[in-house]
């Protein structure tokens, strides 16, 4: 039975992935072309040779891009202007695909990778929300940053999931069932995004993403944080929520027994959590922010099992996403491997850190990160509202202030999480060593 369910979950995931890849859902935007500029014409147009196919296109340069600014014979990503959702041949933006990597940028990637990995190993998700903006601030084009980050996410999640499975924390079956339903959620999320993009354009889409981000993160983050605070004060072990207990009692076939998580629940109740995880992943790129709390409060898993199981989901979804972005040839493997170099240490440190801390510590880190990150995204909302004409345009000083708030909130989230995890881990290790010494002293005495 167990094998059958796992096989079914894997098959479902593969089928969905295959159909999505073939249908072309997700992945990079359609108005993005990759290739080389080979000639600039006097009439302010340029000959562009598409990568792989070798097809040549005549692209119109806008007034703000001077012919001498166009990088020649260097692989670039060109964003084309769209009018009424029709892609034109006018250039909107040109980005160099492979940034130069001086030692300072290499160090920056390693540091962000290490802390992102630590967070991922500890709370099961995170990293992506800070890695992508960090890479973009280093000058990496947005699409390449998303693709390279995605490609580093799934091997990292795989290593983290394996470690936590070894510690007896990850429920692989639950992870696969959730991942299969999350892929359905991603499809729904993409359709909603497309609908919003078609009706309200880029500014509308940005506003929707930011609003969703802030609302979900504030509501869920506050609850997780409050729950952790209560547990830390009372010193009690975490209890399964009433909602999860009630759902587990409903005998609605097919009932599935998840051995590691020690839960028997109907498939119909795991599905909404999985779908919501996928939808959030497609909307704000961090599905774990709903997946982990969903597993804890709706399904009834402990925080340790939930955060470990989320890594299994992250692996399946990350692999599927990487294949999609890889099909468009947008992964900069140098960035992927530099982040991996440090994040593989981070993810294992974070994973073994969970063996030293009490269950509520994971909730504290998760709640804190969610709340601080929501500030970062919230600071972007005034700008998007102005873009949509829903408020007066922002003064340049205000734009700079909001940008600074957004950036420093991300840095704070990452720094705070890194410090909390490290301190909790060191404290746990010292405590464990002291206990060991005590035991030795007793046995020798």
């Amino acid at each position, binding site marked *: 039975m167990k094998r059958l369910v796992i096989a079914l979950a894997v098959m479902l995931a593969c089928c969905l992935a295959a159909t999505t890849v073939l249908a072309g859902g997700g992945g990079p935007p359609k108005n993005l072309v990759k290739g080389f500029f080979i000639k600039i014409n006097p009439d302010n147009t340029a000959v562009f040779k598409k990568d792989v196919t070798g097809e040549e296109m005549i692209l119109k340069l806008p007034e703000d891009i001077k012919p001498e600014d166009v990088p020649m014979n260097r*692989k670039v990503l060109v964003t084309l202007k769209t009018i009424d959702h029709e892609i034109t041949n006018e250039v909107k933006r040109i980005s160099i695909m492979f940034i130069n990597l001086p030692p300072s940028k290499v160090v920056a990637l390693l540091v962000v990778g290490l802390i992102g990995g630590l967070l991922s190993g500890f709370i099961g998700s995170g990293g992506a929300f800070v890695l992508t903006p960090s890479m973009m601030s280093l000058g990496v084009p947005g699409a390449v940053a998303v693709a390279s980050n995605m490609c580093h996410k*799934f091997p990292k999640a*795989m290593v983290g999931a394996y470690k936590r499975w070894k510690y*007896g924390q990850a429920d692989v079956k639950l992870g696969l069932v959730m991942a299969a339903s999350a892929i359905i959620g991603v499809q729904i999320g993409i359709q909603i995004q497309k609908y919003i993009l078609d009706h309200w354009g880029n500014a509308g889409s940005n506003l929707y993403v930011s609003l969703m981000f802030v609302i979900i993160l504030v509501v869920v983050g506050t609850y997780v944080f409050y729950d952790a605070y209560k547990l830390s004060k009372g010193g009690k072990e975490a209890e399964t929520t009433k909602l999860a207990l009630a759902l587990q009692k409903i005998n609605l076939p097919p009932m599935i027994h998840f051995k590691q998580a020690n839960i028997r629940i109907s498939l119909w109740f795991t599905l909404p959590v999985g779908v919501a995880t996928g939808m959030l992943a497609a909307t704000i790129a961090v599905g774990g922010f709903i997946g982990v709390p969903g597993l804890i409060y709706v399904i009834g898993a402990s925080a340790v099992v939930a955060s470990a199981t989320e890594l299994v989901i992250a692996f399946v979804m990350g692999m599927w996403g990487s294949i999609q972005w890889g099909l468009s*040839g947008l992964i900069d493997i140098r960035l*992927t491997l530099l982040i991996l170099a440090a994040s593989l*240490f981070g993810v294992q440190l974070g994973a073994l850190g969970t063996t030293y801390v009490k269950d509520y510590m994971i909730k504290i880190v998760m709640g804190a990160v969610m709340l601080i990150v929501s500030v970062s995204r919230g600071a972007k909302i005034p700008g998007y509202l102005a873009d949509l004409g829903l408020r007066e345009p922002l003064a340049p000083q205000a734009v700079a202030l909001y940008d600074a708030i957004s950036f420093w909130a991300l840095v704070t989230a990452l720094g705070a999480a890194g410090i909390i995890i490290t301190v909790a881990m060191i404290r746990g290790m010292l405590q464990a060593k002291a206990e060991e010494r005590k035991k030795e002293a007793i046995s020798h005495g």
Partner: protein
Amino acid sequence: MSTKLNEFDKNMMAAAFAEAGEHETARQMMDSGGGATAKKPKKNKGALVVKTLIFGAISLGMYYILFSNVDWVTTEYTKGGWHTVYPVGTALAFSFIHGAFASNFLSLIGIEPKGGH
């Protein structure tokens, strides 16, 4: 499994001696077991150093090869279509090798999970 059974047998024998009032014999039996497990980490440490060095060297070599052929790599890896196998496969291979190196290295410097899983 068999070592666990042996350990179980030994513990039961020691308990039997202890119950019979032969505390010294029981303690000796337990100590001999303890001695064996105490020696184990030492033996493991040597293996751990070797493993860390091997995985570290392979990982470093892989990074060196990739970054010294960066022009070829960035061209071939971003051709799209079936070339997606390159970045996805490389990321997987690096995570196995470099992940094993990181794991062994952390154990070597004494950072291990609680209970020594």
